[in-house]
């Protein structure tokens, strides 16, 4: 009897949780739904009171119109190039650095590693102005270099993640190769990195998203329109527009958002893994 009650209560709790999740997820979807719905609205259905949830008919021309309004395709291409270049740098540098912090035993290693982690606390604003001054002096303003080059020198978050992953690979594997006369370089490229594929995929994804979404970097360094990434092009277009263009603005926003959504859906497993890889578990 009491057992039966227990199961019933468990079912009830579960149903309650499910109902709550349903309501919450509806409110989480609402902004994206509203974005897509507006991006398909004919101009005469844009400013209705009460608003229309689903436009009828659907106006797909807002997308080509947005592309005419601003060179959004060029912005998207710029974002893509910047992100890919940064991803390459992140993969290269963080692999090497994490290897040095995990697969080689050397005095002082763990002390320096604490220093690596401590840089996570540094607000960007502290380094923002001197970096701008330095990059101006070497002529990097109005180029993508300030947005790409720092990725080639490692990031504490990625170093930490890859190091955790590499520490989990048995030491004996390295010893065997060393006895056979293999160098550390061969060890890294032939044995360790192939085993780190899931962690490397996570690094690539997060770096891609950071670069794609970065706003303050392009805002500071770029003033030529042909160099703008999507984030900057979209923001400056928005701040110069009135309300009548909202369906075009939403079409442009959708174009900025969709690449990330597509990547996310294809690589969901990697994302979820990335969070547990960081070793952030109790």
């Amino acid at each position, binding site marked *: 009897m009491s057992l039966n009650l227990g199961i019933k209560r468990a079912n009830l709790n579960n149903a309650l949780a499910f109902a709550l999740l349903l309501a919450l997820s509806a409110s989480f979807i609402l902004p*994206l739904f509203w974005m897509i719905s507006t991006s398909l609205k004919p101009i005469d259905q844009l400013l209705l009171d009460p608003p229309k949830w689903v436009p009828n008919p659907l106006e797909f021309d807002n997308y080509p119109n947005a592309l005419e309004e601003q060179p959004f395709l060029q912005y998207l291409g710029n974002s893509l190039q910047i992100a890919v270049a940064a991803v390459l740098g992140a993969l290269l*540098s963080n692999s090497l650095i994490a290897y040095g912090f995990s697969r080689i035993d050397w*005095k002082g290693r763990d002390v320096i590693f604490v220093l690596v982690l401590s840089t996570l606390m540094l*607000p960007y604003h502290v*380094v923002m*102005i001197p970096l701008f001054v330095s990059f101006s002096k070497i002529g990097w303003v109005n180029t993508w270099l300030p947005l790409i080059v720092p990725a080639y020198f490692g990031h504490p978050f990625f170093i930490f993640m890859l190091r955790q992953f590499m520490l989990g690979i048995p030491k004996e594997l390295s010893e065997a190769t060393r006895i056979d006369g293999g160098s550390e370089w061969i060890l890294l490229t032939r044995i360790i990195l192939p085993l780190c594929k899931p962690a490397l995929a996570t690094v690539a994804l997060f770096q891609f998203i950071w670069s794609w*979404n970065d706003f303050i970097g392009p805002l500071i360094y770029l003033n030529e329109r042909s160099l703008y990434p999507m984030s900057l092009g979209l*923001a400056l277009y928005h701040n110069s527009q009135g309300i009548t263009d909202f369906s075009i603005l939403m079409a442009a926003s959708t174009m900025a958002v969709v690449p990330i959504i597509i990547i996310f859906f294809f690589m969901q497993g990697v994302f979820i893994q990335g969070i*547990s890889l960081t070793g952030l578990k*109790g």
Partner: protein
Amino acid sequence: MSAVKKPPQPLLSPRNRRELRKIALGLLFISPWIIGFLAFNVYPIGASFYYSLTRYSPISSPRFIGLLNYERLLFFDPLFITALKNTLYFVVFAVPLGNALALALAVLLNQKVRGLALFRTIFYLPSILPLVATSIVWTWLLHPQYGIVSAIMAELGLPIISWFADPAWAKPALILMSMWGTGWMMLIYLAALQDVPQELYDVASLDGASLWRKFRHVTVPMISPIILFNTIVGLIGAFQYFTEAYVITEGGPGDSTLFYSLYLFNNAFAYFKMGYASAMAWLLFLVILVLTFLIFRSSAKRVYYHGG
């Protein structure tokens, strides 16, 4: 026996030589980080402190003025005080609310409900979307006249709020939007919850503990290091809150969303007061360091690290 001569001692024993070789090898592998650390952290930190003691616009070289920038900021700049207050308001509400929502979502998802993967995606996705795009979406979402939120509120008989156009509501609107982006925190909580041993809950059930008591006395202590981590990371992020305010409100209406980093950015890149902005950056750095330290210290007794 004593006749046996000791071999001449080499400068470095083979063991020491191996040690040194390993250190050199380790440093070689981490050398990209060392270069980056010096170029993108150490030098800029030093330079920004020096700039903070100068009057400096990009067209002239820095001129040393001692602590004048700090003095002016703290005692003679009402906008600085406004920006500080706005930021504290944001931090005080957005960090705990975002944390609580993330934890609540994680606990709900951990009930082995159907459709877990789909729900997880829906909650996580907003936190990785480009902020510029989502900011523009929210200005339209919360548009007082034509936005869908106003329509829903009117339907429910609630008063119409002007959100981003109303000095009293602009900050709450931004806080609401920041809660929408709490999915990454939820994911971290979910990973932590899945690591709490089931036996602990079973034992608590045998003792007749209610759901709330289980949450309060099993879940919370077991994941307390993660709560601490998310609080600190959230805090550091919230103090640097910038993009949404820049895109949506540009500091308005009536400076109600002039946040610290927005005012700092304006000083540096709109008014070209690089020295003044550097002093702001250093004050921010100090505030973050002190707060992090205080949170660590006050939580030391309440955070439970199981398994060391």
